[in-house]
């Protein structure tokens, strides 16, 4: 029984040990305690998707996860998408080149969701891309550039025919 708990969590490859209030969300933990503010809060009830991160290899809403539930977990946020030498993830590069972001607030969740889509479905058609992204709301772009960026990455990553 506790109102605070010590947790061990790996975020973007780095291990942390922190004491957190049990009512603290994973989103607030990442943002306020680890100072990784790339993950955004748009609704705090799981609908907008801006807070989406990767937890133990699967996308999850960090606003709907208590920080204490992440004890022992492996988390990846937008800040962890870069490779060790600082190169952007291909999805980040594609978003940039296709103007797939305007205000940038939905972008962290969009990237995580898009990356997961291509991992599960490397050759999606446009409808499948839109369906996979339908849980990430964007108010600026009208989605077209985002869809184009995801399809472009899928094409790039297609194995070259011999």
């Amino acid at each position, binding site marked *: 029984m506790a109102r605070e708990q010590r947790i061990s969590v790996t975020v973007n490859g780095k291990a942390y040990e922190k004491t957190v*209030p049990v*009512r*603290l969300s994973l989103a607030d933990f990442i*943002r306020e305690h680890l*100072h*990784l*503010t*790339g*993950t*955004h*809060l*748009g*609704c*705090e*009830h799981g*609908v*907008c998707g*801006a807070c989406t991160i990767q937890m133990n290899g699967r996308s999850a809403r960090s606003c709907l996860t208590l920080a204490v539930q992440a004890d022992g977990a492996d988390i990846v*946020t*937008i*800040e962890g*998408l*870069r490779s060790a030498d600082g190169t*952007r993830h291909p999805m*980040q590069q594609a*978003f*940039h*080149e296709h*103007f797939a*972001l*305007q*205000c*940038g*607030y*939905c*972008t*962290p969740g969009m*990237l995580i969701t898009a990356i997961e889509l291509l991992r599960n479905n490397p050759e999606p058609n*446009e409808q499948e*891309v*839109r*369906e996979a*992204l*339908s*849980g*990430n*709301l*964007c*108010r*600026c*772009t*009208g*989605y*077209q*550039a*985002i*869809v184009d960026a995801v399809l472009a990455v899928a094409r790039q990553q297609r194995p070259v025919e011999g």
Partner: protein
Amino acid sequence: MSDARFVNLRAVGTSVLPDEAIPLVEGEGRFLNDIRLPGMYHIAFLRSPHAHARLRAIDATKARELSGVVEVLTGKDLLGKVEPFRSMPNRFSGGESTQHWLAVDKVRFCGEAICAVVAEDRATAEDAVELIEVDYEPLPAVTDPRLGERDDAPLVHDTCPNNYLIKREYERGDVAGAFKAAHLTVKRQFRIGRKQALCLESRGCVAAYRESTFTLMLWMSHQLPYVVRHYVAEHLRLPENEVRVIAPHTGGGFGQKASIYPEEFVCAYLALRLRRPVKWVEDRLENMVASTHARDQFIDVELAVDRDGCITALSSDVWVDVGAYSTYLWSAGMEPLQTAGLMPGPYKVPALRYRTRGVATNKTPVGPYRAVGRPSASASLELLLDEVARRLEIDPAELRQRNLIPPEAMPYRNANNLVHDNVNYLPCLKLATAKADYARLRAEQRELLANGHLVNGKLRGIGISCYAELTGLGTTTAVGPGTLLQPGRDAVTLRLETSGVLTVAAALPSQGQRIITAMRQVAADELGIRLEDISCLTNDTATAPYGFGTFASRTAVFGSGAVIQAARELRHRILALGAFLLEVPAEDLTIVNSVVQTIDRSKTLPLREMTKKSYFSAKDIPPELNPGFEVTSFYDPKFGSFAGGAHIAVVDIDPQTGEVKIVRYVAAEDVGTVINPAVVEGQIIGGIAQGIGEALLEEILYDDAGQPRTVSLADYLVPSALEIPRIELYHANTPSGALGGFKGCGEGSIIGAVAAVACAVADALSRRGGDIHEFPATPERVLTGLGVLPAEA
């Protein structure tokens, strides 16, 4: 001065990749909630659970005693210390509304702020809010503007008889005569539901005391930093030059973040009082009630046409439910005056009459949101035009062609006193119909007659709309009709730094429009400086000269125009000093890729060497040739620049569920000289997406007691990637009369989209003799329009 233009790559017109987007795509943006200052407190507000009530007593004792709570502020604490918001002067005011930052004796809408709790963290502040005890005396609520204007209605403000916050009657041309002589008149009543901008990032403020040399420093998720600074200083009785306002990365604005709200001002007051930084972040539950709403119109409209279907007169009666207060800055006039006054759009309307009212109700105040009154107005007129087309058996596109103001008639003064010039309404319509293969779409639709109008079991509908959007308003045109606020002049500063790089500064913060990139592109072309040598400051009153801010589709016109103006002077200075240093006449010089050079490149001087000499070896230069490389120029385009377009939407409706799917969408736009095509495309498609949301999905609902029924994102539905089709976008651009030929493009497309989709739905229903007059066209309303469900009482 050399006539030879630049031989380096022309930046304007190219989809230059925006460096400003890189921090955002890498997760290193600095949005309001990312800002953390030492010793910062957090604020939560107690908000009214009643739509209308007297505040008898507030007991915050338990709240104050909660561990971690610093302070609880009430409206009474502020009396006499700060100026409340009195509605902005407007020529068409009904009465004056006064809004206290924290309610004092009355609350007038659900969600109105009553107390501010300051605590060490947000969760504790929210805990404390729950401990505040308030004694309310509920009062009857006004929730319908048509009832609210009656003599027997309760008053929201004692100073506003019949709850009119704004009203205006207007007539130009012989309207009665036109209706009498008309070949056909059509009349309809439309109801457009309440909306809100739904920025992904809601509002927020960090206020700090004595941060650097400023008494008060404000970070605010806001579109108009200088305007905020002015009013904060005024209301807090501080000298304006002791206040600094910064707009950090902002997650959407769309006009919702262009009003002045009480909460941020309370933050400022508390920072000064507590001498500590304070932060308030509006959560989504608050945002649904505390940030301005939009639309919410009842539109009675009548059209008179001749036997060719040409409009001879337009008459409307408009009621707008403007909510509990006249929003500060813009007044309650925005929606009512624009809905009625801008209804003619791009069509020739020889005679116009309207009576419009903004009626106060006990709901969230209504403020500006992308295109304000025009989407609802345009949808109403376009639906009427389609009815004319049906009755006179004229094709809807042909009918619009007959009514659009053609290029050869321009400049054309419409009955609403706006002068249309330099805009391609008709070419856009022709382009849209050609690209959509409109004739074939209609032919296919006719062929479906045999099949009960069904294609794959769905009812097919086609909608067309044409819009006019007045952008980049100069001093001769009011942004907020009737307001005494005249934002027609903005400044840009250009400064060559000691190392020869260029800084552009303009108070035009971006919420994703890539204003920084656009101004860099214009500056690069105007000065011959490499794009990578140019940076741009836009979001800070301490580093940018005066600018009204990002609003009303003005930044392309103002930012670019001012850059061009300032660049002319700066270029003159560069070439004059270059002539001296290179010992050639200035007329023989140009600037290419950041190098001053003779046209034949026989003599060259990199800018960085020139500036080094100018800054660090000034004694070697005659003073008259070294006035400094900083130029500030104010630009007033005087008039507005019309943008325009034509949209075609094709929908399939499921006659069993009422679901509307958009199967094709074609848009042809005139947005003037384009700076960055990809950015423009993003703005247009984004606007279309919001328009589709307005037409089909989004609605804020209240019950009869003034209680909001749409309280979260599970209730207020914005389009996802599945609701927006691939948009086919084309251009028929023509330059504006503004400097550089630029036009704004931020708001036009939402006008086109709401109207095109509304018309497409109505067109589909009309195949079965059905009709729709209330929007959004929810599946339920569609089925009611088809007669599948009974109409509500």
